[in-house]
């Protein structure tokens, strides 16, 4: 049964091929069946494979399957081969499971769109590529998936191709991530040159043997991989593409730009943790990047007007938490947050999509309001998502995962205390911006009349995800609360557990948890004061969205776009303004010289026979004279 592993990426790929080749001839229903069916079957296969995997677990920690030799020449041997362990199984489960729900949702959400088959083809291709990424046994195959998801992201952001801005956003996303990818590729070159292998497991064991901790090569490779991860996961300084990527259809944002693709960077770092462990300096950098991104994105999310942009910044912020966890060595915590985040962020996006659809594609939250009564299903699911994101204690999954991360930051030997304070501030901001959204969209008076609740195909995923967003957290509960360690035990077979600083006991953990709880609730309370319709501030119309300089700065995501525009984009356009080329000029001078010579010489060609004869005579005389001398 586990040998069916190859089917998991193959099924969506087959779905893509079918839709790409024959999609034009299918009816919408058939398209939806193929599109959802392929991912659904993949999810089912994952369940089968996972079941079998657990049967042998933990005696057989990993499963290996080679389909064929991809490249086998001159020392470079790379197979199309899959590697299944606890980490990749978790990823696969999330991708196929949530992917299937989102496909189901899209079947209704996209129903009116002319590119229905194209949409599902791209989505299926994306799932296939993402599965390749997480199942790859070697780095080159991982790179294939890595670029593949980038391409699908590009295609789906620019899905509505008639809008030029969408196309620009798509291009921006691809190019910015491609910068990261190139660094990643250079990392691969170095790795291969030094270790003569690209297999993930082999490379890491070789690296551990060959390079001492903190060695230069390890640091360089880790930095290059980090740049790749940063590009894909929209972290500082390559984060600029993600807010613009919201140009794509909302299910795309849910699947690609929230739940799965953007966490590829997290996966990469977790997958290569042996390598990163060799470069503590880089780990520290990861933590700092994570912290900086989470604060930057959280503050930006506070002032956005577009509902999807708020969610986009919140995604960046939450991935910042994951990076933070990775940076302090809390690998499992990062992946736990990945799991919960996938659930609640997909839920939030899908619920937002439902709002947008019912408001005729209105995305500005200032034109929304009072939807609580009109869209109860959407409201409650959105509320659950927001609660999970802000980490409302005990009942939501977000609390458990975020708490784990903060506890790790507090107790890790790799961390600093100021990082923890920063993260705590982030938790407060998360509550603030999440509930700003809730209060703006669902409370107060109705500004745009909604059409009504979505249908079943959209409602089912919402409910399932809401359920998951509440319950997934119970897989792992801290010592002080229930002490469930299912998740960390499971992942401990693939990822090392973090060691604690000495002197970290239950009492300090309780104190730490209390701080987290308080900060989250503080954020929500602040949101209620500031934004709940009827509150003092809100009645005075004071939102953070009016044009004060600081707000403008925050709205533009701390002005990174403008900075890059000045520093890179404009010089680039200046460079590429002129289609002519300099080298050609050089050759042109050659022709100009030849031509002027020709013009001068052609004066001698009078066309008169007698002139020619005379010149012949003169020439002969000159020659004779020369001979005579």
């Amino acid at each position: 049964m586990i040998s069916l592993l190859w089917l998991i990426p193959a099924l969506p790929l087959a779905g893509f091929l079918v839709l790409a080749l024959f999609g034009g001839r299918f009816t919408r229903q058939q398209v939806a069946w193929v599109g959802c069916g392929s991912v659904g079957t993949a999810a089912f296969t994952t369940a089968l494979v996972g079941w079998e995997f657990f049967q042998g677990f933990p005696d057989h920690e990993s499963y290996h399957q080679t389909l064929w030799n991809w490249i086998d020449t001159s020392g470079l041997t790379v197979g199309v081969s899959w590697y299944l362990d606890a980490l990749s199984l978790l990823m696969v489960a999330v991708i196929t499971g949530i992917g299937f729900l989102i496909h189901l949702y899209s079947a209704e959400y996209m129903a009116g769109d002319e590119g229905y088959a194209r949409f599902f083809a791209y989505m299926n291709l994306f799932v296939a590529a993402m599965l390749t990424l997480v199942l790859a046994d070697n780095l080159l195959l991982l790179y294939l998936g890595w670029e593949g998801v980038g391409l699908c992201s590009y295609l789906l952001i620019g899905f509505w191709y008639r809008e030029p801005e969408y196309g620009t956003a798509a291009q921006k996303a691809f190019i910015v991530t491609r910068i990261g990818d190139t660094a990643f590729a250079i990392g691969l070159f170095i790795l291969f040159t030094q270790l003569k292998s690209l297999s993930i497991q082999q490379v890491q064991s070789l690296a551990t043997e060959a390079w001492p901790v903190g060695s230069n090569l390890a640091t360089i490779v880790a930095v290059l991989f980090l740049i790749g991860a940063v590009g894909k996961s929209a972290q500082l300084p390559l984060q600029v593409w993600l807010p613009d990527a919201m140009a794509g259809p909302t299910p795309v944002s849910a699947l690609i730009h929230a739940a799965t693709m953007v966490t590829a960077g997290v996966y990469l770092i977790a997958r290569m943790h042996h390598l990163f462990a060799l470069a503590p300096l880089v780990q520290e950098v990861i933590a700092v990047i994570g912290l900086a991104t989470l604060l930057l994105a959280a503050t930006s999310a506070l002032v956005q007007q577009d509902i999807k942009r708020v969610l986009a910044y919140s995604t960046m912020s939450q991935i910042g938490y994951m990076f933070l966890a990775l940076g302090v060595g809390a690998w499992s915590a990062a992946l736990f947050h990945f799991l919960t985040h996938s659930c609640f962020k997909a839920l939030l996006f899908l619920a937002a999509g439902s709002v947008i659809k019912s408001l005729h594609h209105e995305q500005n939250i200032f034109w929304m309001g009072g939807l609580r009564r009109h869209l109860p299903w959407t409201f409650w699911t959105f509320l659950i998502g927001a609660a999970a994101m802000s980490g409302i204690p005990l009942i939501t999954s977000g609390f458990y995962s975020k708490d784990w991360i903060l506890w790790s930051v507090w107790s890790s030997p790799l961390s600093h205390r100021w990082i923890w304070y920063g993260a705590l501030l982030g938790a407060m901001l998360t509550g603030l911006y999440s509930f700003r959204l809730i209060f703006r969209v669902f409370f107060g008076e109705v500004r745009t009349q909604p059409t009504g609740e979505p249908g079943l195909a959209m409602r089912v995923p919402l409910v399932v995800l809401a359920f998951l967003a509440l319950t997934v957290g119970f897989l792992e509960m801290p010592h002080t609360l229930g002490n469930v360690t299912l998740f960390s035990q499971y992942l401990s077979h693939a990822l090392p557990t973090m060691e604690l600083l000495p002197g970290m006991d239950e009492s300090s953990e309780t104190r730490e948890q209390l701080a987290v709880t308080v900060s989250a609730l503080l954020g929500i309370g602040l949101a209620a004061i500031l934004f709940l319709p009827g509150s003092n501030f809100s009645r005075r119309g004071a939102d953070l969205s009016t044009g004060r300089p600081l707000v403008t700065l925050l709205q533009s995501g701390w002005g990174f776009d403008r900075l890059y525009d000045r520093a890179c984009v404009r010089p680039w356009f200046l460079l590429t303004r002129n289609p002519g080329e300099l080298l050609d000029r050089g050759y042109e001078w050659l022709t100009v010289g030849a031509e002027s010579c020709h013009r001068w010489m052609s004066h001698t060609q009078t066309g008169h026979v007698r002139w020619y004869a005379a010149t012949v005579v003169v020439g002969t005389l000159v020659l004779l004279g020369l001979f005579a001398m």
Partner: protein
Amino acid sequence: MLSTPALVLAMMLFSLGLVGLLSRRNILYMLLSLEIMLNAASLAFIAGGARWGQVDGEIMFLFILTLAAAEVSVALGIVLQLSYRFHTLDVDAFSEMKG
């Protein structure tokens, strides 16, 4: 022997032909001058042959003769064409080859 005066004569004839070639504007006269120059050259060859008692001079004369025959036949054809097309034989009137 007569070779030296013959060479002087050849030079004189050649110069006369050259003067004719350069001074006359009628293409027909230019051709005639050309013939004179060719003859002067043949004379020089034959004088040379006579001086050294070699047959090569006469052979060269034969070649010059064939050359002259071919040249004249083509040149006269051209002269005819020119007269048909331009209705003049003034070479200064033709400058189609002007660069």
